[in-house]
């Protein structure tokens, strides 16, 4: 009886989780009907415990936008009545009307629905540089049977991540250097072959996983003269085995987050690794950028989750010989791979920890009179080490933003209740609606323990003036993270550009950093001639023993600016300087890519940088993995060293 209930409950939760978080419906009919297997990898795989997973089509542009975020069928728009709605059927918000979004949008940005900036509708292949192919490489590759393409659409799709400047350029139909070719290996051995051939023919390889980078990591270096080949790992997406005794799963690195979770859920497991990009980002990408998931408080970040990594480098394959849970064998080689950002090789297979799908899950939220109190509460929760699976604190601007995304209320009763709640918080409790902020919570685990845990957290919150504000608010907070990227595309239709960036910072500096960075953004926008006050908002998204992760959203109306992207970049640059000056890190989980590499030396010291360089020099002496992330290119480095010689005063 109990077990029946359990498995039924588990089933239910698995379903619910899917609907809520990953949110998107399985679209098998969109998948490629006939898959061409290059070699016998798959045949071999059938011997192992292999789950069926759905595959990202090779022609991703068939399901996804080529010049914006996410699925082609899902987008925000203002309908004829001027009301915002979200199209498609994939998300909880899909098909809904959001009555207050327009007012919020116009009020916050000074934008107007009259002033549109539509994107180029289709990709014109003629605007794309013709591929520069290394014929010998192509010949040899053909012989292996690994599928490849040099069609413009495929190449353009893999030439960018989701930085503002990248998407902005696409919307204007402008393409810089794009890969000359895309290859789709479907197993470790195929990658080995590709890397061998690339080394043999001196071709530049850029690994491509989910394409959700926000660090310019996928941008092709302008100065690269060799043929650039994008290695798309999407076809390597199988769970090769699950080991229930050790609670590990061995997975191909091209699998995307939501697929991995879905497939593991079928067996009653999960990894618990849920970065906000999990719908599209891949396991290999997580490893390569040191990703962090929203539920890291229970499951850990990617570095805590991996047990074994296999990576193909120009020197050969790097991996450990066993799966011991911890080792003292010199510096952990995994840490050369984690965060290597595609500069050393391609991660092909990963053994990851797995956990049984939690029995019970509950959202929650707490309203605080102000951000200071909220941060103090999070700090206390961290001190007592009782953080729920996820705890996030939005500032006031983000709280209001969240409200703007409330769908149309179906009954007068609900709206009446909402009204009552507002009156209670603002009038009865004396909260200033322009200062209050909200923390969203997610509890997971055994039902009894969740309820107990919930009480503990709410009790702490109460000592900081926090009031429980219901499950619904909490859930909407998390939903926001999945649709925010879609919202940016809406903004870009109406002269509004923006982006998010993050940092990690010791507890005692969280408030100072948040205030100073937000203010710096406002200040810089004004100085750079932005006509309207920007949206400059932040939230604390992760708590640690010694500090927190802070996430900023920054957007502004660029009407009247000649070069909005440049202004945007200057402001983001200033904001990053401000972060560093206030004791924040260069990045908590987005990585460095090319966007932030100018600060690497300052961040990790020149000796530290030298260490990384020497690893790169050994592993990839010919710079086959030439995306030039993280480290300055060799020449630049030498010049910098020369310039660093102190100038004599005389």
């Amino acid at each position, binding site marked *: 009886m109990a077990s029946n209930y359990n498995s039924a409950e588990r089933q239910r939760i698995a379903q619910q989780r899917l609907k809520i978080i990953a949110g998107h419906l399985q679209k098998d009919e969109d998948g490629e009907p006939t898959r061409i297997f290059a070699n016998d990898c798959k045949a071999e795989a059938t011997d192992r415990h292999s789950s069926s997973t759905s595959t990202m089509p090779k022609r991703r542009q068939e399901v996804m936008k080529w010049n914006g975020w996410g699925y082609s069928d899902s987008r925000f728009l203002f309908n004829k009545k001027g009301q915002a709605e979200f199209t498609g059927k994939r998300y909880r918000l899909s098909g809904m009307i959001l009555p207050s979004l327009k007012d919020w949008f116009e009020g916050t940005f000074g934008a107007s629905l009259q002033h549109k900036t539509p994107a180029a509708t289709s990709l014109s292949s003629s605007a794309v540089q013709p591929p520069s192919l290394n014929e010998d490489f192509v010949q040899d590759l053909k012989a292996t049977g690994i599928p490849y393409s040099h069609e413009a659409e495929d190449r353009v799709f893999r030439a960018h991540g989701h930085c503002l400047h990248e998407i902005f350029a696409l919307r204007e139909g402008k393409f810089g250097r794009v890969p000359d070719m895309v290859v789709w290996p479907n197993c470790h051995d195929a990658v080995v072959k590709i890397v061998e051939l690339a080394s043999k023919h001196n071709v530049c390889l850029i690994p491509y996983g989910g394409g959700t980078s926000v660090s310019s990591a996928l941008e092709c270096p302008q100065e690269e003269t060799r043929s650039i080949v994008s290695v798309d790992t999407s076809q390597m997406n199988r769970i090769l085995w699950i080991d229930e005794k050790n609670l590990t799963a061995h997975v191909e690195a091209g699998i995307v987050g939501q697929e991995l979770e879905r497939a593991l859920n079928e067996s009653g497991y999960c990894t618990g690794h849920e970065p906000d990009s999990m719908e599209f980002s891949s396991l290999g990408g997580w490893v390569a950028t040191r990703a962090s998931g929203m539920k890291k408080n229970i499951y850990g970040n990617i570095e805590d989750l991996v047990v074994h990594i296999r990576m193909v480098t120009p020197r050969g394959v790097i991996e450990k010989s066993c799966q011991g849970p911890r080792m003292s064998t010199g510096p952990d080689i995994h840490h050369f791979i984690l965060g290597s950002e595609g500069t050393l090789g391609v991660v092909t297979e990963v053994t990851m920890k797995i956990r049984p799908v939690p029995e019970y899950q509950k959202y929650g939220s707490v309203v605080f009179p102000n951000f200071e109190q909220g941060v103090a509460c999070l700090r206390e929760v961290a001190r007592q080490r009782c953080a729920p699976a996820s705890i996030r604190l939005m500032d006031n601007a983000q709280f209001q933003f969240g409200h703007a995304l409330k769908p149309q209320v179906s009954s007068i009763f609900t709206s009446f209740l909402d009204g009552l709640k507002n009156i209670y918080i603002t009038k009865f409790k004396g909260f200033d609606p322009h200062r209050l902020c909200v923390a969203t919570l997610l509890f997971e685990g055994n039902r009894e323990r969740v309820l107990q845990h919930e009480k503990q957290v709410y009790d702490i919150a109460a000592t900081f003036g926090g009031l429980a504000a219901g499950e619904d608010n909490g859930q909407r907070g998390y939903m926001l993270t999945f649709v925010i990227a879609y919202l940016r595309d809406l903004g870009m239709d109406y002269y509004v550009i923006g982006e998010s960036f993050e940092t990690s910072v010791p507890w*005692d*500096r969280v408030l*100072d*950093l948040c*205030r*100073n960075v937000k*203010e*710096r953004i406002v200040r810089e926008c004004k100085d750079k001639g932005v006509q309207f006050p920007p949206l400059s908002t932040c939230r604390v998204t992760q708590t640690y023993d010694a500090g927190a992760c802070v996430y900023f959203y920054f957007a502004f109306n660029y009407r009247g600016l000649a070069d909005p992207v440049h202004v945007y970049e200057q402001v983001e640059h200033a904001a990053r300087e401000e972060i*560093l*000056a*206030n*004791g924040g890190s260069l990045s908590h989980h987005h990585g460095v890519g090319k966007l932030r590499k100018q600060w690497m030396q*300052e961040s990790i010291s020149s000796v530290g940088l030298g260490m990384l360089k020497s690893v790169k020099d050994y592993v990839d002496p010919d710079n086959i993995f030439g995306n030039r992330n993280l480290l300055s290119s060799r020449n630049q480095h030498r010049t910098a060293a020369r310039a660093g010689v102190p*100038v004599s*005063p*005389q």
Partner: protein
Amino acid sequence: MASKTLYSQRDPALKKRDDFEDILEERRNFSDLRYALRCYTPVLYKGMTPCKPSMLKTIVLQSEQLHYVVNQVSKETGEATDIIQEEAVVILEEMAQRLQLSTIRFFAFTLSKAFKALFQSIRVNEEGIQRLQQAIQEHPVVLLPSHRSYLDFLLMSYILYTYDLALPVIAAGMDFLGMKFVGEMLRMSGAFFIRRSFGGDKLYWAVFSEYVKTMLRNGYAPIEFFLEGTRSRTCKSLTPKLGLLNIVMDPFFKGEVFDVNVVPISISYERVLEEALYARELLGVPKPKESTSGLLKARRILSEDYGSIHVYFGQPVSVRSLAQGRINRSQYNLVPRHIPAKPSEDALDFVSDTAYRLVRKQEENMVLRPWVLIAAILMQNLDGMDSALLTEQTAWLRGLARAFGAFLDWPDNEPAAKAVSSSLALHRDLVRTEGGRVLLTEQPPESSSPEEALFNRAVAALSCASYRNQILHVFLRPALAAVAMDAAATSRKDDVYGSFALLRDVFSNEFILCPGAASRTGVVTLARRERDTRDFEEACYLLMKCGAVQILKQDIVVTERGRPVLSFLSGMLEPFLQGYQVVCRYFREEANEGLTEKQYVPAVRSFAVKRILSDGLKCYEALSSDLQKNALAALLRMNALKKVKVVDLVTLKVNKTAVKTLEDALGCKVPVQKPVLARL
């Protein structure tokens, strides 16, 4: 709002300044009582957390910063922490302000009466007030008025109250507390009291700095203090003290506030209340200890006319934009911010450079009356001069002063003769006209001994000098260049610069000159080298602009027109050159082994008296303890003197050759050695 104007330079004559408005006018026409009781609702800092003075104390006493130091001191002394914490409470009690609106209203009423009796007008630049109002809302604000009179800080609060601006808390010297009742009144009008020196007292420093920082961080109120540290008895700006400036900038360096705005404020008195007192004090009559009865006696001054006061609120300066590219704030990342640490080299350097610029800003916006021009001329003609000639020269000097960017309050249409005669009338205490000649007045006119007569002449001369000093900053750099050109072996620019650099080093305690290039670590950065020549470049620019010199490729050539200009300019510095020489001579000829700093001033004064009486030297400034102390500091700094500690006594050891070299250089007897570094 707050801009980088601290760095703006170039043509000073074109400088745009605001207009003034008289705030006494309204007081003369409307009820003072109603004014004192009117509704006062100032705009406040947007990020302010409102709290009471007592709450402030609690925050300070509970701060991590203080706890850390208390524990540290407890470990060092073996005393229990609660005893030390108790000490901190006592220190804070003694220090803290208790700003009360009622006291302010009381002052608003009484001061209105007093000001109307004393002054013709109190003129304030209203645009400056508007800028300040804006700045107060945006960021924590630090007010930095010049300091010439006791009146300064009451006046400041009075003006801010008048304009409905947030009332400041003011750092005041502990000596005020000696005045029983007045001390507490001042405390209730926002003054907090600090000891004049607390060198090694860690606990005191911790309480004090945390108290100031807490008020700044919370945006409690604008913080006001005097960069010069004390009232300038000579009316020259004093070398800025850096302690408090360091403290108020620290919260910005450490990211605790987004920015801090500092506002230089120039208060210029047509006649300083303490005028006669100052000259006597400089001559060795000790200043009366602040006492309530002394203050009451000062009542007789109420019957005199002290002319006008001009208060110029300068452009608020954003510390953030000043520090851009100069302070690497991430240097504070690796140590918890509550642990006190010595400021880094770059922070010290930045603070000292900023202090210097701020004092120069104060100087620049000092309003100068025609009288200071007259005083400058009279100081070069101490035996008196023909009043027609005086008028002519005053008119000429007005032109020069304008060209150098002086902020003259002299309407274009007012003829020189009128300006001169009304100035002489206002300052009849100091000057008289006899048979068409203008002379300094000695008081009392008859004296028994030659020493006494000398003393009386000196009082008159030093009082007059204090007016000349008000305009000194306008002429200072070109004057140093003029002297340097006389002293230099050739007219080559680097030779002149060599002489200039030496003079600048000698006089860097005497005048506000750019802090030199040498740093504590001996690293000469590019910014420092630029700073090193800044004064000289400015001097050359001004001289060239007024046509006094031409600068050819390598040489500086005096033009025909330039000769009187240069001779006037060097004449202006002559008393200082002579005064320093007298000090040098004293050390060569008379100073004994075992001379202490305490004995130095009286000893050098009596030496100077002798010189003046026997050699007919006309240099009364050699009698000024201010000059004497500055000269001593210069000699110590330049290693011509050394402090030697014998047992408990610190004595001065003289390096006679070095003193002689310096004396000769100042007397232009020997061309100055080319400096080791030609930095041009």
